[in-house]
């Protein structure tokens, strides 16, 4: 029946083209929108996964409330219930730190899921050059360990990341931060911890990740220098961990959490808000495509219904020369399938071309930095899905008209035609 189905489609070129357009447009939109959205998502995910630790172990910043205060200050009186506060005490413990870094190091060294880890001390500080000041974060680490945990190495613009280790208050600064301070490579920046006298650090290099929230605020220094600056020698408040498989971050973090009071968070927990946005984007994408395909499907359904009515006489002919109900069903079902498959394939090709076009669009400024090209995903799954959705929508839409055509009996058609 394939031969007759094709003849039918070719005989009504206009209708066929119009129906085809619906499916073409649907699958093309899916490919283009998915390519664009997923490209963006993969780009961000890549940044989330590779620019930061997969798991971050950090010191708990304990809140101080009256219970904690009573226990620490008035434990005897508190037992007798004699302590009451006019205004409840509030605040956090100063100098949070990881209590047992050696213990963590043992755990991390033994766990086969761990690829690398890096103890850190990061401090909220004020950077200043002359009269200009900017808030930011100074991350102290052992550079040789740090480079194995994140890909900071690949973002270095000038200088060498390893050189901060030689001690003596050397830092690598984000390009944005340096610009804000009106300063340059090789200059000296004063770093103020909020309590003591500002300490001079020498800028020995710059980095640029493309992420503004990092580039405008962050500087890297040697672990020992930052510890000294914060007045907490030999202490760390962070442990950045890279896993062999980032997908196992959540499960691994949950395994470790009970081992210590420190906070253990996986990258997807830290970035839950981002990932939620992705989920909403995905839902929107599927809704959009469902709408387009629904319309296209209705088009096929309508047209096939009309065609079945128009072709009753021919159905009768086929039946009285010995064709079976199943053959008739096939005749019309195949037309739907052909429309779906051909339409999807054309849609995929056009969608691919559209993606190539989108890729050429550059977007300046923005949170991704300047002059970046649009990120588009060419994931084969997108194309497979678009093809399946298009074909299935068409198959589904043509099933009912085809079945009704199969049910017609030759005699009813001949009689109604004769009268």
């Amino acid at each position, binding site marked *: 029946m394939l031969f*007759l189905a094709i*003849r039918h489609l*070719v005989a009504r070129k206009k209708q066929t083209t119009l129906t085809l357009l619906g499916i073409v447009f649907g699958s093309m939109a899916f490919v283009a929108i998915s390519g664009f959205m997923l490209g963006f998502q993969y780009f961000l995910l890549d940044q989330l996964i590779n620019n930061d630790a997969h798991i971050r172990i950090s010191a708990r910043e304990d809140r101080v409330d009256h219970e904690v205060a009573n226990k620490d200050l008035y434990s005897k009186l508190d037992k007798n219930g004699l302590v009451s506060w006019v205004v409840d005490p509030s605040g956090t413990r100063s100098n949070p730190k990881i209590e047992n870094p050696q213990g963590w190091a043992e755990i991390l060294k033994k766990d086969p899921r761990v690829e690398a880890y890096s103890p850190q001390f990061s401090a909220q500080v004020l950077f200043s050059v002359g009269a200009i000041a900017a808030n930011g974060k100074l991350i102290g680490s052992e550079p040789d360990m740090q480079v194995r945990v994140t890909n900071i190495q690949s973002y270095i613009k000038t200088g060498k990341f390893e050189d901060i280790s030689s001690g003596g208050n050397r830092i690598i600064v984000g390009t944005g931060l340096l610009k804000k301070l009106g300063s340059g490579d090789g200059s000296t920046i004063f770093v103020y911890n909020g309590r003591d006298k500002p300490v001079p650090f020498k800028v020995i290099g710059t980095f640029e990740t493309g992420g503004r929230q990092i580039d405008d605020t962050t500087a890297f220094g040697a672990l020992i220098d930052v510890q000294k600056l914060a007045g907490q020698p030999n202490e760390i408040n962070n442990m950045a961990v890279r896993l062999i498989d980032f997908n196992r971050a959540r499960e691994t973090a949950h395994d470790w959490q009970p081992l210590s009071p420190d906070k253990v968070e996986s990258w997807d927990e830290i970035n839950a808000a981002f990932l939620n946005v992705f989920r909403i984007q995905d839902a929107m994408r599927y809704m959009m495509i469902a709408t387009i395909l629904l319309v296209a499907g209705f088009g096929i359904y309508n047209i096939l219904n009309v065609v079945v009515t128009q072709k009753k006489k*021919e159905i*009768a002919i086929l*039946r*009285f*020369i*010995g064709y079976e109900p199943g053959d008739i069903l096939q005749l019309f079902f195949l037309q739907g399938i052909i429309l779906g498959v051909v339409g999807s394939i054309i849609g995929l090709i056009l969608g691919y071309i559209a993606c190539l076009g989108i890729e050429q669009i550059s977007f300046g400024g923005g949170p991704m930095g300047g002059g970046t090209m649009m990120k588009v995903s060419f994931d084969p799954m997108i194309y497979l899905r678009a093809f399946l959705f298009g074909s299935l929508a068409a198959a589904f839409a043509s099933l009912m008209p085809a079945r009704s055509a199969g049910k017609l009996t030759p005699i009813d058609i*001949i009689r109604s035609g004769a009268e």
Partner: protein
Amino acid sequence: MGLLAKNLVKSFGEPPTTVLHGLNFSIKEGEFVSLTGRSGSGKSTLLYLLGALDAPTSGQVEIDGHDLSTISSDELHRLRNQSIGFVFQFHYLLPELTALENVLMPARKAKKDIAMEKTIRELLTEFGLEGKENRLPRQLSGGEQQRVAIARALSMSPKYLFADEPTGALDTANAEIVMGLFEKANRELGTTVILVTHDPAFAARAHRQIKLVDGRIDSDGPPTTN
């Protein structure tokens, strides 16, 4: 063998109006029978019952000893494909297919279309359609279309050919050609022909004439000329 009608009753609608009132007769293989009667007398209805297109309200039709009410649907489709040919007043052709493809459709169903193409081309030539095999129905005259339809009905060399006023829409010359084709098939291939016609001259050319009046057999025998 041949066709057998036993107590054939057909009624339509609710309340039922009976169109055929218990007909009994048989048609032998190789006969040429004309079926006549006034409009509304039940000729077409009877033809569809005999040709396995419709089922009687009661009674039986047997083709070659097979009761049509008890055969499987596979057998029914094979019967329609290989043993029965139908020709109607209005040439029922598939408009998207050429004359040759139309005639090959029954063979295609039986998966013999490639093997039979040569025979079918010869048939079309014999029917005066040489050089028009690849035309679409709308590029053919009414008479030519009817010849294509007859070629299709005869393409599988069926034992039985049913024709419902096949000359009704044709001029005398074309009607004569069509009548000639039926007679030739009957004479040379032994095809059993059952022909519904309003034309007394054509009816008279059959071996036997069955005349219906209000759904009953009024006369059955050698053709009369009136």
